[in-house]
């Protein structure tokens, strides 16, 4: 039953010209799950996330989000998307940016909560152009979750975030997931991968392996997730 899945990707392929960025990817994410997308640079993680929120159309296969075939404008208000590069308006202040994204998603309250979550409430008046890279990343996250979406798509959210805050981020992710928010997060960082309930390994546009961190360890034949990952990636390539 598709309805029990928040995200259901079936046999999706996507090409840019002659280049196959995604090749027959199947992926199912249950509601309230934290799903980690792992894979080397250029594997197709961003492309997959864009397909899930309907920014790209698949050449083959279907994407179903919250019971609706994508692309679908109606579903978008329930999705929060944090892009890989911190996409913000540099001339606006932190608070103005967050308020803007709240407004276009039809949720005007929640700005303060979002700012407190990313610990930017004290810096809310700072102009984004003057922020450091990590602070921008935090502002970008606040913009993605200010409207309390049912599905959060986070494309490498913790790049440039200091270790203490990273731990706090994952705490909040877990709390949101416990409240029913589905989270798909791409990452290169293995200790983050360990915090996901399920992982998908992508390489060359294919889903190589899928399962809980324990499953991946077993499949890769190593107690170390990174080694297991490298073993899986290397095995399929040869």
């Amino acid at each position, binding site marked *: 039953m598709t309805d029990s899945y928040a995200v259901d990707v079936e046999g999706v392929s996507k090409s*840019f010209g002659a280049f196959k960025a995604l090749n027959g990817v199947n992926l199912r994410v249950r509601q309230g799950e934290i799903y980690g997308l792992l894979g080397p640079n250029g594997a197709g993680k961003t492309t997959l996330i*864009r397909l899930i*929120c*309907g*920014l*790209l*159309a698949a050449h083959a296969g279907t994407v179903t989000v919250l019971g609706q075939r994508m*692309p679908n*404008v*109606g579903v*978008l*208000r329930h*999705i929060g*998307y944090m*892009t890989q*590069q*911190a*996409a*913000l*308006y*540099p001339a606006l202040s932190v608070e103005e940016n967050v308020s803007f*994204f709240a407004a*276009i*998603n*039809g949720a005007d309250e929640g700005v303060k909560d979002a700012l407190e979550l990313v610990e930017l409430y004290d810096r809310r008046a700072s102009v984004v152009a003057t922020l450091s890279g990590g602070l921008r990343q935090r502002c970008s996250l606040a*913009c993605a979750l200010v409207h309390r979406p049912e599905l959060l798509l986070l494309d490498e959210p913790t790049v440039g975030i200091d270790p203490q805050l990273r731990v706090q981020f994952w705490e909040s992710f877990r709390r949101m997931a416990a409240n029913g928010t589905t989270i798909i997060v791409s990452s290169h960082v293995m200790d983050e991968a360990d915090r996901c309930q399920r992982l998908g390994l992508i390489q060359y546009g294919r889903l190589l392996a899928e399962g809980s961190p324990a499953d991946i360890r077993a499949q890769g034949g190593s107690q170390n997730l990174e080694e297991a990952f490298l073993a899986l990636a290397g095995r399929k390539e040869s």
Partner: protein
Amino acid sequence: MSGHRVRAITRRLLQGFRRDRRTLALLFVAPIVILGLLGYLMRGSTSSPSVGIANEDSGPLGVMVADALRHSSRITTTDISAADGDAKLKDGSLVAYIVLPSDFSRQAQSGNVAPEVHLEGSQPGVDAPVLQALQQAMITLASQVAGRNVNFQPQIKYLYGGKSYDTLDYFGAAFVGLVVFFLVFVITIVSFLNERSQGTLERLMASPLRRGEIVLGYMLGFTVIALVQAAEVLIFSLAVLKIQNQGSVLLIFGMEALMAIAAVNLGIFLSMFARSEFQAVQFIPLVVVPQMLLSGIIFPVSTEPKALQYLSDVLPLTYAVNGMRDIMVKGADLTWSSLQLDAGVVAGFCIVLIAAGTATLRRRLG
């Protein structure tokens, strides 16, 4: 100073151009387009103004002067009756008409001729050939009236403008609107490209925003800026430069608002065809200069070569400029059919551009 490092910079620049075919094409196409247009406009122009001749002279000399005018290479003439003259100036079919009064032959015999010259007056540059052609005809006349010095004192009457009306009045009326049009166009195209390059457009597309909402939001925002700018330009033009204005300031404002809306949507539409700010900047000469040349700002559309007139007829700016001049120079209000047409066409262009801007704003990235 290291030649090696300087070369590295030069090489990097040229390598960028090699990939950016569009920039390269524009760099070499734009000057040819602009210079070609200018050449065609100036050399190929059919700039002999249409002049009506009303010969009411009961004597023989009027016929002779009319004949001399007809053969003048400076003007194109048609025979009219003096009563129709003003109507023909108003509808634009004539830029001037000359009345030779019923006692013209008698005046000539007595040595003082005073033909009436009625000028439309809003277009500088066309008055001179009319007066020169008449002067020439008078020389012919003088040679016929033997033994007498004929004193030539044309009675010049202006329908619009008048003696104090100068080039600045003529260009000012058009530029008041133009300045706003081009500046708004530039800021729209650049800020829309920023939206694309800083990644926020991707975020907007992944939000429940509809394309129409984005276009409308942009339109309102920049129209507000444009109107503040228009107010400033208008106050400066009227109070400091003392450009003549016969019409209602509110109408000028309304026309400027329409032009701003057209400019915003033109900017959104064209930004879809540029991948970088670098490329967008190059749309500016390609969009701005031909419109400057062809919309009748500098060269009246009626004096352009026929082929270019067709082009002028489809440019929104032609109508906008014409409308601004009608209001400021001629004191037109909304009961004038010419102003209704101009405002209607500019509004129509706005609608087409809004649709085009919305249509090019695709939700999907690929």
